[in-house]
Structure formats: structure tokens, C-alpha cells
């Protein structure tokens, strides 16, 4: 009865407010927008239906994330209103029980929340049935789908959020704490999704940790087929049920705890808390006349400074006692926690370099970088409202301080807190480095990154936050405005705000690396920050004018006051700031709009579409082939300039004369007029799209050659609005000439690829990558080799590297020149480097081995040399000779680990030098395997070049990895290889759909780098290494020259078929020509002693083989084939024990019992113990053995 009255009254009270209905409208709009943003593209690209149950689920989860803000004001107010309004004595003295009081309040808040979050399914309905999505994107309307997402996702999330927020607010007696609950849930969701699931690969734990079900949906998005996504309703099964149950239980526990702790007592004096709020007894009265020491206050600049300092100190103390202190503990703690995650790549430890740590701390998209602005917003609100919330404002406002003193003081306090946080993070980073024995401290990098660039960012944001809070003069509205402004940094571009001039605090981006420092990024950064500083100053002036002091009854009065405060110096400052905004902004606009054309994403897409529309007709036009490139390159690293002069030799390899030559010109460089050795009249010049057509007079006859001279300059003027081209830098220049030099013929690479985008631009539908059926016409594309000859000049003190043999090296007018010539033709895909390199040299037979590296990065240089030698040993023996007399690894600037194998030279990014496989507890030399993989590309990719159709990754990436496995086995032995394979199999833990194409049509990463090598390795184990490698050698002999027709995956399949015995042809087909999955499981392995000290092992196994097609239709295929059966002795230490038996056994579909006798007592047994067959659950292949007795005892 009581509960009902409290519920009814509370519901009525809150429902009469604007907040819930406003949040209803906002949530509706948000869901509508997100549904369109997130789902329509994928539906158009041929994913799943726009209103499929799965799409509804995904949007609902995103809605829940935003919807965290719905219950915060409701639950917070219901929980803490009485205390905050000091009405609690009236309520606490009524004869209402705790249960009725808390229960009624909570239920009312939850009921209203449940009502408001109905906006999610309604927004989804609106998105689907409002004009917008094409009818073919929609499936039938299924009310059950909407009901199920509401009941399985939206409503439980709302309950969890509401319960947690209510509990926090009751226990802290502050409504604001409810928002802390929102932040906590948000952070936990992100942590579960990003760290636990994605980074740590603990998907199971991640699914539980994430309170909103984000991770569960994420897993489904990877593992469900489009068919399942379209039809399957989200229901409370398995992962989702476990997650929901856990969090509902936690929410209920929070409520129960709150009920237990809550007392109808005056806050601060109830038992148990008396220590914190000691009541002070009044001292005895002593009456006498008041004589205040006659002190004249000291106005003036000194006094003002001290006042600002006092306010700053007070603010800082308040922040540290509150959210700032929490952050000072939690942020470094978080850094410590995730440090092992940052400092590894695929489980290989990375050196704790300053660049790595500062990079993580300062990344905008990472958790620490995201938390800082949110913290600043929160703290700024607290500071601006501090006096008023504590009721001290009238005392403070009447003090004879100018209005700007508190503003400046609070700003300084907030700034100090940010500085302290940066210092704490720096100290933590140093601690990590010391802990791990890293001694190369780089205080300069810490200073410039954390106390330079990032601090500037944070301070600009702090000023914005304070200013907005002053101007808005409504705490929560201020928070909301600031969150939106902050969010624009991430969502601005998708909302059409692509010009960073409109997004507060933005800049074109920067990075720091060891080779090139900040590269060319700082100039633009400084201009942008100056621009935002001017805005911030303008905002500060506005805040100074509209600063609230005393009672102000409305905006009219505020403006009136502001006009009175507009004194000369204030006006002058404002005018100056305004002028700076215009001046600096104008200069930036001159750079980003005049010096460089500003093009939106839509315009760039349109340009690509237009290119295809205009010139797509020439895609199959026979064009002469490039046979020789002679270059003279002048690199000016210090001036960020480069000139490339050169000559192409083009030969008509066709059967008919060619009368026109199509030339594509690159963006970002100036290409001078082209020179021809015969009359070539430009019949079409399209500067906008970079395409020219020349009419050749006379036409180029078959077999005839044409010389084309060009001159390309890279000399960027000013800066652009986006990421600066960092190819030519002070140290660590890395130029891909192919990107800059004229290209012959129509450039397919410029076409738009995504199906939805193509349709939007009215382009003919086509698969993103040509199919095998289309391959005939493409087997010539990109074929052919060039003779390469280049003179590269660079600054004194640097070494320039290009493909080929270094013929000569000289110094001329203070510059160094290097002349490189290839001894064997190479493909037209290579890089030029220049840096102050250190070189480590060795030989392998007649091949010179070199590692060009940054002097400060000696890591892995020896390993690279070792890898090169071992790889050349194995690969030349297995697949044929290495064509060049040089093999180089060249380091270049850039974050990340990436390597790229071009002819002769292999590029590797700085991150690779930081890998420390000697510290890898798994005892796997992963970097060595990567080196072998890159060297193997000299065969698979550089010599044998696949046609650009589906299945090409099988020929270069899969075969390179397969070859690397051989190198590792040859060098380190079988056991090491098994460990490496185990590391590679970790990729199975990432959930993904089993739907897919057969390997012969491989395009995606998992197929190219994992499934492909696994399949090749399985075939090798079944058929024999000699046969498989023999087939590969045949491939190399046939196609290694790189001349058309280029090979496809079908050619490889044919060669493999030729060497595979009849009984394994089925396996070959299953591995490559079908998308096959084996589901092998050993349920039980029992052992009993047999005669002669031997042991008989009986295995109960289940086997099944399925083929999954592209859309996920699964069909079982009968299985009756040899599978390895393994029995192992107990392991000494960790890992697998000695094999007692390893041999093929026939295994059928279904359950069966297999027996084998082994000489020693076994400990573990199972089928396919080495995981040769593709099985997404490899860990259940083997089990620990049990003796027959134990099983018998177990049965009793």
C-alpha cells in the first residue's frame, strides 16, 4: 500500500518533468540515425537485411550505450532528491518502511526508464519504415523481432543501469553519482569488448564482463552467417543468457546491498560514520567588544596574482579530493594493467620504448586519451558550480575580487590537475621501463609528447569546458553541450563536418617515431592549435563577460551586466582574439583550401566514380608494356622535397599497332610535360582526374619501343587539412615511386570497390576482386618486368637505398649519390629510402646480405641476418635459385610492425626492431618466421606473380607462410615448428563465421595467412613434403619469370592434384576446393595394461565433416578417411609428452571406438593431435587418458 503510493507519487512527479520526454525524443532520433548510419551501407553492400533481427540487435546495443543517460537523472533524482533538497527529515519520520520507500522510488524510476527506452524499438521501426531504405533492403515486418530485442537487450540493460545508478545515488546521497554509474557501465562495456575480448582474446570472459551485451553481439556478428542474421531471433540462449543472468544478479545484489545499508537517519551522523563528520562542541562564550585589526587590503597586480594562486590551490585541492584524485590513482593503474597488452605483438613481447608508451597514452582513440577530456568536462562542471553547490557563493561573490580572478584561478587549478595526471602517467611509464630493465630513457620525448602536444590539447579543452559551463550556466546542460563538442572530433566527419576548422581542438594529426621524430606534422599542428587558442581566448572573454556573480534573474539581465563589464581592455582582448581567429583561420584556410584543394569524402568518391565513367571504356585497350625504368632522383630530406626525372621504355608486345597512349598522373606531385621520342599529340588532357591521352604518330608497331621522359616534383607548399604526406622527411625517407610516377593505361586501382557505394554512384555492380571466371583477360594485367637503373641523390650524412646492385657511390657539391642497377628484371614495385642508416652486412654464397637500420635500433638485426641465410638455404634448395645478388632489409619510419617484400629490398617498420622474441615465454621465434616469410616472398610474389583475381593471396601469402614453416622446421626443429603452429592457431579463438569461399577463391586475411598455410601444411603431412614442394617447384619453373599468362590458384591446384596420390585426392579437394570443416573430438580415452608391459588405449571419438557455403548453408558430407591418431607419454615439464604412437587410422562420421597398443604408459591421446585438419575447436581433439579401473570406479 505504502509502496504503491510512493511509486505512484514518484512516477507522477518525474513524468511531469521535461527530462524523460526529452531523452525519449533524443534516443528516438539517435536510434534512427544510428540505424541508418550503421546498417544501411552494409545492407546495400549485400550483408544482411536492414530490419533483420540481428541488425535490430546491433542498433539496440548501441542504443543502450546512449541510453545509459536515460536512467541517470531519473534514478539519481529518485534516490537522492530528499537529502539534496533537505526534505529528508519530513520523509524519514513518516511511518514508511525502508522497503516501501526505496522500492517505490526505484520501481518508479525503472518504470519510467522502461517507458523511455521504448524509443529504441520505435526508432528502429521508424528507421525501417520511414522513407530512406530501398524496399529490397527490408525483410517482412516481424513484431517478434522487435519484442525480442527489447526484452533481451534494451530492458535488461535499462534495469542494470537503473539499479546500479540508484544504488550509487542512495549510498552517496548525491544524484550526480548516478552519472558516475553511467560512466562505469560505459567503461566496463568498452573494457570487456576492447581489452578482454579483442586484445586479450578471452572472448568468453569478455562476453560476461560487458554489461550491455556489446561483446555477445560482436561475436555473433563474426560467427553468424548472413542467413542466420536475417532469420534467427535474438533469444536468451547460451552467451546472451549467461551475460544477462550475471548482470541482472549483480544489479539485484546492488539493490539488496543498498537496502541493507540504507538508514532513515540524518546524513553524516549515523553510527559507523561518525569518524568522518565529528560534531564540534561549541566553546564557551567569551563576550567582548570586537576589535578587528585595522588592515587595509592590498589591491594591485601582486594581490591579484596571489588571489588567482589561492583559488587555483583551492580548486586543485578540491579536485584531488574528488574525481581528480580517483583519476590520479586509476589512470596510472590502468596503464600498469594494460602495459603487457601494449607491449606485445601477437604475443611477442615488445621493448617498452618511450614512443610506444607515449603513443598509447596520447592516442585519442584509446581509453586513456578518451578518459582525459571526459574527466576535464566533469571537473570543470564541478569547479564552476563549486561555490554555488556548497552555498558559499554569496560569501565569495561579495569579496572585492574582479570577476576574472575566480575564472583564471579555476582554470589554473584544472590545468594543474591535468599536468599532475600527465606527470603521474609519465612516472608510471618510467616505472614500467625501469621494471623491465629498459635503460634508454628519453625525457625529451616524454616532455614533447605528454607535456607538449597532449598537454596543449588538454588545456585547450579545459578552457573550453570552463567557458561552456560558465556560458550555459546549467550544469547538466553544460555537460551535454561539452559531450557533443567532444564527440564531434569522432563523429564530425560523418555528420558532414569534414573540415577540421569547424571541430574544436582538432588538428590534421601527428605521430612520433624514432627515425623521423615528428616528421612534417608539427607545422600544421601548431597553426591549428594557435587557431583554437584564439577561439579559446574569445570564449574566455565571453565567460568573463557572462560570469555569474550574485543573483541573476535571466538572460536579459546577464547581457545587461555583460555590457557593463565590457571595459576597454576586455573589448580589446576580445577584438584581438577575434582578429587572431580570423587571421590564423584565414591562413589555415589559405593552406587547406587554396594551396591544396579541399575535397570531402563524397567529392573524392565522386571523382573516382567519374574516372571510371569517363575512362573505364579503355580498361581493356591494349597499351605498351613498361620494360625499363631509368631514374634520376634528387631527395632533399631537410627541405621535404624530391625531384624524380626519368625515362620509361614502353614496348608494344601486342599483335596490332597502338595509336593512343593513356597516361595516368598522380596527385600530390607536380608532373612536368611528358617527352616522347616520337610525335605524340595530347588529344585529351584531364588535369582534374589526372588522365591524359596521347596520339602517337606514327602508331607504335608490334615489337617497337617508345621512350617516355618525365619530370615529377614533390614539393608540398604549406599544409593540408588531413594527414601530412610523410614520405620525404628529415631522416627516414620512404618513397614509393609508383605512387608518384606516370602510370600507363587505365588504372583499375582508382575504381570504387564497395558494392553499395558503386550503386550509389550508378556504377555497374561487380565483385570487389575479379573472380576466377574473369581471370582470362586479367592474366596479363600487371605482368612483365623492368630493367631498373637509378641514381639517387640525398643529403650528406644519409644513405639512399634502391633495388639492385650499388654500382657507384660518390659525393658531389655536398650531396651523396648512389647508383643502383638491377642485374635481373624486376616488377615495377619498389621503394626508395634515405636515412642516416647503420649497416650490418653478411654473405650467403654469392649474395650480399645487408640490414640497413636506425643506429638506435640494433634489435633483431642479427636475427634478420640469420633468417635471411636460413631462408635462402632452404628456399633455394626447395624452390629454385634466388635471382638477385643482393638481399636487403631496410628499416623505415612509422608506427607498427608491417613488413613489405619488394624485389631485392624488404621494408620493415620500426616496430619490428622492437620485438623481443627472446623474452617470449612460449619459446617461439616469431620474428624469425616473419623474416622467413618475407624472404619466401622473393619466390612467391616477386618471381611467381599471381593474376589479380580471387585466390591470389593463396599464391603469395599462403605459400610464403608455408615456406616459412619449412625454414623454421629446418632451422629450429620439429618441436619449435609445432609451437609456432600453436601460436598461429590462436587465431581460431577470434570468433568468425564459418561461412566462406573455398581457399582457391581466398581473399581475406584469415584465409591468406592462416587457413592457407594450415591447408598446405596438412597436405604436406598427408602426401609428403617432397611431393608438395616438387609441385611448387614446377609452379616456379612455369611462372617464375612473371610473364603472361600470370598464374591463378587453379594452376596451383592442378599441380597439387598431379602429385597427390589417389587416396588423398579427396582430402586435397576438401582443403582447397571446398570450404570444409572437420569436427573431431575425443570423448574419452581409457588405458589398460596389456601383455608384455604394453598398454592398450581405447578411444571413444566423434567425427563429422561439414561443408559451409558462402551464405552459411551447412551440409554434412560423409567422412571415411585417414586421420592421425596420437598417443603421448606424460610430459616432462610443460607441453606435450613424447609421442608413443602417431599414425593414420580410418575415421568415419559419427561415434566410434578406436584402439591401439603402445609400449609405455600413456598420459594423453586423441585423433588429429597435431591439428592438421581445419577444426575450429582444436583443443578437444585429445584428452587425458584414464585407466579402466578409474572409469569403473567412476561408474559405481
Amino acid at each position: 500500500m505504502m509502496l504503491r503510493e510512493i511509486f505512484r507519487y514518484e512516477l507522477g512527479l518525474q513524468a511531469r518533468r521535461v527530462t524523460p520526454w526529452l531523452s525519449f525524443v533524443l534516443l528516438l532520433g539517435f536510434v534512427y540515425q544510428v540505424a541508418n548510419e550503421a546498417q544501411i551501407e552494409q545492407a546495400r553492400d549485400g550483408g544482411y537485411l536492414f530490419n533483420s533481427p540481428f541488425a535490430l540487435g546491433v542498433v539496440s546495443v548501441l542504443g543502450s550505450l546512449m541510453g545509459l543517460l536515460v536512467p541517470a537523472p531519473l534514478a539519481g533524482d529518485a534516490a537522492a532528491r530528499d537529502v539534496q533538497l533537505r526534505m529528508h527529515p519530513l520523509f524519514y519520520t513518516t511511518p514508511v518502511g525502508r522497503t516501501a520507500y526505496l522500492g517505490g522510488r526505484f520501481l518508479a524510476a525503472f518504470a519510467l526508464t522502461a517507458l523511455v527506452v521504448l524509443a529504441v524499438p520505435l526508432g528502429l521501426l521508424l528507421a525501417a519504415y520511414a522513407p530512406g531504405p530501398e524496399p529490397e533492403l527490408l525483410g517482412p515486418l516481424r513484431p517478434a523481432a522487435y519484442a525480442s530485442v527489447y526484452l533481451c537487450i534494451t530492458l535488461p540493460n535499462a534495469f542494470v543501469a537503473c539499479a546500479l545508478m540508484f544504488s550509487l545515488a542512495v549510498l552517496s546521497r548525491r544524484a550526480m553519482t548516478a552519472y558516475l554509474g553511467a560512466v562505469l557501465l560505459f567503461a566496463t562495456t568498452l573494457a570487456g569488448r576492447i581489452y578482454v575480448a579483442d586484445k586479450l582474446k578471452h572472448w568468453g570472459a569478455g562476453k560476461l564482463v560487458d554489461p550491455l551485451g556489446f561483446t555477445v553481439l560482436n561475436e555473433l556478428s563474426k560467427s553468424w552467417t548472413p542467413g542466420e542474421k536475417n532469420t534467427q531471433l535474438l533469444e536468451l540462449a547460451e552467451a546472451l543468457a549467461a551475460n544477462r543472468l550475471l548482470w541482472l544478479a549483480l544489479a539485484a545484489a546492488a539493490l539488496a546491498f543498498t537496502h541493507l545499508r540504507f538508514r532513515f537517519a540524518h546524513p553524516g551522523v549515523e553510527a559507523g560514520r561518525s569518524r568522518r563528520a565529528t560534531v564540534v562542541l561549541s566553546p564557551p562564550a567569551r563576550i567582548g567588544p570586537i576589535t578587528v585589526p585595522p588592515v587595509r587590503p592590498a589591491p594591485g597586480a601582486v594581490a591579484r596574482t596571489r588571489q588567482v594562486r589561492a583559488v587555483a590551490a583551492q580548486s586543485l585541492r578540491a579536485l584531488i579530493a574528488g574525481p581528480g584524485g580517483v583519476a590520479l590513482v586509476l589512470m596510472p593503474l590502468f596503464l600498469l594493467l594494460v602495459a603487457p597488452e601494449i607491449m606485445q605483438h601477437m604475443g611477442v613481447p615488445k621493448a617498452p620504448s618511450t614512443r610506444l608508451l607515449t603513443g598509447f597514452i596520447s592516442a585519442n582513440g584509446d581509453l586513456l586519451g578518451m578518459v582525459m577530456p571526459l574527466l576535464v568536462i566533469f571537473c570543470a562542471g564541478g569547479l564552476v558550480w563549486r561555490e554555488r553547490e556548497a552555498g558559499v557563493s554569496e560569501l565569495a561573490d561579495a569579496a572585492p575580487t574582479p570577476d576574472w580572478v575566480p575564472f583564471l584561478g579555476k582554470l589554473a587549478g584544472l590545468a594543474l590537475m591535468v599536468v599532475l595526471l600527465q606527470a603521474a602517467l609519465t612516472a608510471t611509464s618510467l616505472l614500467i621501463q625501469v621494471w623491465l630493465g629498459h635503460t634508454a630513457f628519453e625525457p625529451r620525448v616524454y616532455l614533447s609528447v605528454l607535456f607538449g602536444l597532449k598537454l596543449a590539447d588538454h588545456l585547450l579543452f579545459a578552457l573550453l569546458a570552463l567557458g561552456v559551463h560558465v556560458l550555459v550556466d546549467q550544469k547538466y546542460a553544460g555537460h551535454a553541450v561539452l559531450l557533443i563538442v567532444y564527440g564531434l572530433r569522432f563523429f564530425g566527419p560523418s555528420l558532414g563536418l569534414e573540415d577540421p576548422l569547424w571541430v574544436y581542438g582538432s588538428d590534421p594529426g601527428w605521430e612520433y617515431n624514432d627515425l623521423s621524430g615528428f616528421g612534417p606534422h608539427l607545422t600544421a599542428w601548431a597553426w591549428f592549435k594557435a587557431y583554437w587558442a584564439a577561439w579559446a581566448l574569445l570564449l574566455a572573454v565571453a565567460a568573463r563577460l557572462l560570469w555569474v556573480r550574485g543573483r541573476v534573474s535571466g538572460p536579459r539581465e546577464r547581457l545587461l551586466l555583460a555590457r557593463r563589464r565590457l571595459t576597454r581592455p576586455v573589448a580589446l582582448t576580445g577584438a584581438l582574439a577575434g582578429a587572431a581567429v580570423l587571421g590564423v583561420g584565414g591562413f589555415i584556410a589559405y593552406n587547406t583550401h587554396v594551396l591544396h584543394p579541399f575535397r570531402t569524402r563524397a567529392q573524392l568518391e565522386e571523382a573516382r566514380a567519374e574516372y571510371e565513367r569517363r575512362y573505364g571504356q579503355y580498361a581493356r585497350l591494349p597499351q605498351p608494356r613498361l620494360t625499363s625504368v631509368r631514374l634520376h632522383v634528387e631527395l632533399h630530406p631537410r627541405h621535404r622535397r624530391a625531384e624524380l626525372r626519368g625515362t620509361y621504355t614502353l614496348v608494344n608486345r601486342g599483335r596490332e599497332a597502338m595509336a593512343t597512349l593513356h597516361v595516368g598522373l598522380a596527385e600530390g606531385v607536380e608532373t612536368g610535360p611528358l617527352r616522347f621520342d616520337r610525335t605524340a599529340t595530347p588529344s585529351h588532357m584531364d588535369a582534374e582526374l589526372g588522365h591524359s591521352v596521347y596520339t602517337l604518330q606514327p602508331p607504335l608497331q608490334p615489337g617497337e619501343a617508345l621512350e617516355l621522359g618525365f619530370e615529377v616534383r614533390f614539393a608540398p607548399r604549406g599544409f593540408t587539412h588531413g594527414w601530412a604526406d610523410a614520405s620525404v622527411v628529415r631522416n627516414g625517407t620512404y618513397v614509393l615511386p609508383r605512387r608518384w610516377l606516370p602510370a600507363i593505361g587505365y588504372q583499375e586501382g582508382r575504381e570504387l570497390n564497395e558494392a553499395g557505394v558503386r550503386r550509389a554512384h550508378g556504377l555497374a555492380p561487380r565483385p570487389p576482386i575479379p573472380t576466377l571466371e574473369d581471370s582470362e583477360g586479367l592474366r596479363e594485367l600487371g605482368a612483365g618486368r623492368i630493367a631498373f637503373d637509378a641514381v639517387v641523390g640525398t643529403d650528406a650524412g644519409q644513405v639512399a637505398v634502391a633495388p639492385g646492385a650499388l654500382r657507384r657511390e660518390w659525393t658531389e657539391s655536398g650531396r651523396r649519390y648512389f647508383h643502383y642497377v638491377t642485374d635481373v628484371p624486376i616488377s615495377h614495385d619498389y621503394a626508395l629510402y634515405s636515412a642516416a642508416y647503420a649497416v650490418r652486412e653478411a654473405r650467403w654464397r654469392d649474395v650480399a646480405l645487408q640490414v640497413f637500420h636506425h643506429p638506435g635500433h640494433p634489435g633483431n638485426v642479427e636475427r634478420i641476418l640469420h633468417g635471411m641465410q636460413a631462408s635462402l638455404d632452404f628456399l633455394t634448395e626447395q624452390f629454385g635459385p634466388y635471382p638477385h645478388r643482393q638481399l636487403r632489409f631496410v628499416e623505415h619510419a612509422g608506427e607498427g610492425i608491417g613488413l613489405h617484400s619488394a624485389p631485392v629490398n624488404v621494408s620493415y617498420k620500426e616496430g619490428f626492431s622492437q620485438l623481443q622474441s627472446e623474452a617470449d615465454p612460449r619459446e617461439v621465434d616469431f620474428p624469425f618466421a616473419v623474416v622467413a616469410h618475407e624472404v619466401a616472398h622473393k619466390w612467391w610474389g616477386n618471381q611467381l606473380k599471381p593474376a589479380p583475381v580471387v585466390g591470389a593471396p593463396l599464391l603469395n601469402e599462403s605459400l610464403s607462410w608455408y615456406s616459412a614453416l619449412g625454414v623454421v622446421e629446418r632451422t629450429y626443429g620439429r618441436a619449435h615448428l609445432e609451437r609456432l603452429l600453436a601460436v598461429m592457431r590462436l587465431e581460431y579463438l577470434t570468433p568468425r563465421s564459418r561461412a566462406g569461399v573455398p581457399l582457391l577463391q581466398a581473399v581475406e586475411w584469415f584465409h591468406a595467412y592462416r587457413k592457407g598455410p594450415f591447408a598446405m601444411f596438412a597436405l604436406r603431412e598427408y602426401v609428403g613434403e617432397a611431393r608438395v614442394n616438387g609441385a611448387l617447384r614446377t609452379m616456379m619453373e612455369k611462372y617464375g619469370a612473371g610473364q603472361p599468362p600470370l598464374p591463378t590458384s587453379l594452376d596451383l591446384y592442378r599441380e597439387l592434384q598431379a602429385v597427390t596420390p589417389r587416396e588423398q585426392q579427396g582430402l586435397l579437394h576438401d582443403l582447397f576446393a571446398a570450404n570444409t570443416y572437420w569436427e573431431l573430438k575425443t570423448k574419452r580415452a581409457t588405458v589398460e595394461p596389456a601383455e608384455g608391459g604394453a598398454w592398450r588405449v581405447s578411444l571413444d571419438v566423434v567425427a563429422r565433416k561439414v561443408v559451409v557455403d558462402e551464405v552459411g548453408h551447412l551440409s554434412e558430407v560423409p567422412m571415411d578417411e585417414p586421420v592421425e591418431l596420437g598417443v603421448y607419454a606424460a610430459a616432462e615439464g610443460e607441453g606435450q609428452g613424447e609421442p608413443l604412437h602417431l599414425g593414420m587410422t580410418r575415421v568415419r562420421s559419427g561415434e566410434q571406438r578406436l584402439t591401439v597398443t603402445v609400449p609405455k604408459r600413456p598420459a594423453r591421446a586423441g585423433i588429429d593431435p597435431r591439428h592438421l585438419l581445419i577444426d575450429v575447436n582444436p583443443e578437444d581433439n585429445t584428452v587425458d587418458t584414464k585407466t579402466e579401473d578409474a572409469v569403473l570406479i567412476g561408474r559405481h
Partner: protein
Amino acid sequence: MDLQIRNLSKTYANGVHALKDVSLTIPAGMYGLLGPNGAGKSTLMRTLATLQEPDRGSVHLGDVDVLKDKERARESLGYLPQEFGVYPRESAERLLEHFAVLKGLTDRRVRRETVDALLHQVNLHDVRKQKLGGFSGGMRQRFGVAVALLGNPRLIIVDEPTAGLDPAERVRFLNLLSGLGERSVVLLSTHIVEDVAELCSRMAIIDRGTILLEGEPLRAVEALRGRIWRKVVPRGELEALERTHAVLSTRLLAGRTVVRVYAEALPDAGFELAEPGLEDVYFRVMGGHGVSRAVQPRREVAS
């Protein structure tokens, strides 16, 4: 140095006319501003304390235009608002030091001395290190006085300081205030008549934004001598009495009602002449029997 208030008017957005053309001249010394709740006292006080803008009118403290030159006015201002809070986790000394800096006492040594002396004066020195959150209402008020007194102000505005204090605290507090009115203008607003009677040499009565009476309390009381009559009546007769006489106040005494009426001469049998008090002045003015801002009882027209 006087505080000159001229034609001050303020209307709130909700239509409440808080001040109607208020003019007052307030000399040095304690000045009482008496009025019921909602009379406009706090609006007037906040306006004088530079924290609120009037719609019209002017305020001068000596040669300082309080409304225009707020910063200079604040240099001479001590303000104790009707309601204020404290940072509960700060100590009295620390927060007082902070306010001292804000008031311009930026020299550390001088500030320390001043703060120390003030804490002694308001009798909080023994608890100066304690957290403000644990202070009683009276201690908190005294802390507020200490803040108001920082920087030796020439205008002290004290808004309803005794509301919510127990009798002992109230006495202590009034003693504290009485020590202030020597050199400065001390403006005390209250709805408790005794506060004014005990402390102030001058006073004004305000209701619904209008000053009803302005003068010296003693003289106002004196002017009523011989016109206040008292009678003890049973409860049932009260209504009839109110119809026929100008009843100023009624008070219960041991179950019977003591009635005080205003009359030029003995109004009725059973009445006896009573000693006038400031309360009689207040009720007479509030009851609409006063017609001007000065006490002019002789021109009174009997109702």
C-alpha cells in the same frame, strides 16, 4: 559616512514586486531592518551587497556608487547572507584564510595575524582546525561573521543572522554584533523584533517592498506611551473585541488571552494602560495603522 539608498525598485520575472521605490539614509551604527518573511528584506540586502541588480534606483556608500562601481564597493563590504554553506571538509582556519586572500589580504604575515585575531574574536579559535562540516548553526554563523569582518569593512550587511539559533547562541551572536557598530554602517535585517530593540539605534520596517516606518526605536516606542492598553479576556470574547477595537496583538498566558490594543484613551472597562514596546510599534505599523514613514500618532484617524 552614510549609506544612501534612493528610489530602489525591483520586480521579479514572476511578477513579485520585491522593492517599491525604497529610499533610506543609513548612518553609521547598527541599523535594524524589520519585516515579515517575504517583505523584500533579502532582496534589499543582496542589492546593497552588490549581488543583485535593481531595476531602478541608486545606492551610495559615502562617495562610492555601489551599483556602478561594484568593485570599490566590495572593498568596503562585509556581507553575511541569510543562508550560506561552507565546504564541509575544510577547516575553519583554512577557509577563512582563503576568503582573506579573496578580500585582498595577500600578505601572508598580515593575513595570518588577521585570521588569528578574528577567530579569537568570534570565539572559534579553539576549533579553528576542525572541519566546518561538524559546526553547529551558531558556530557557522560566527564563522560567517568572521568572513564578513575580514578586511575591516565600512559597510556590514547581516541578513537574518539569528534565525535558527538557540537562545544562548543568539545572545552570544547579538553581543558579537553589538561590538561592530562603532565605526561602520551595520545593517541588520531580521523578523525578530527583540533583535532590533536590543541592538539598533535606528530602524526601518518594511513590508511588501515598501518602507512603512523609519526612525529610532526608542522614540517610536516613546510615541506610543499612553496609547497601549492591555486586557486579559476569556477566549470566547476575543472575536467581539477584535471587531470593536484596534487589536495589536494577542498572547496566550496560562490558558487565557492577553489582548493589547491601541487607543488614544481608555477604550473599555477592564483595560489597563500598558508599557509600550517595539513589538507594539511593529504590529501597529504592520496592521495598517501607520500612515507615513515617520511616527505620527497624533494625526491618526481612528478606525
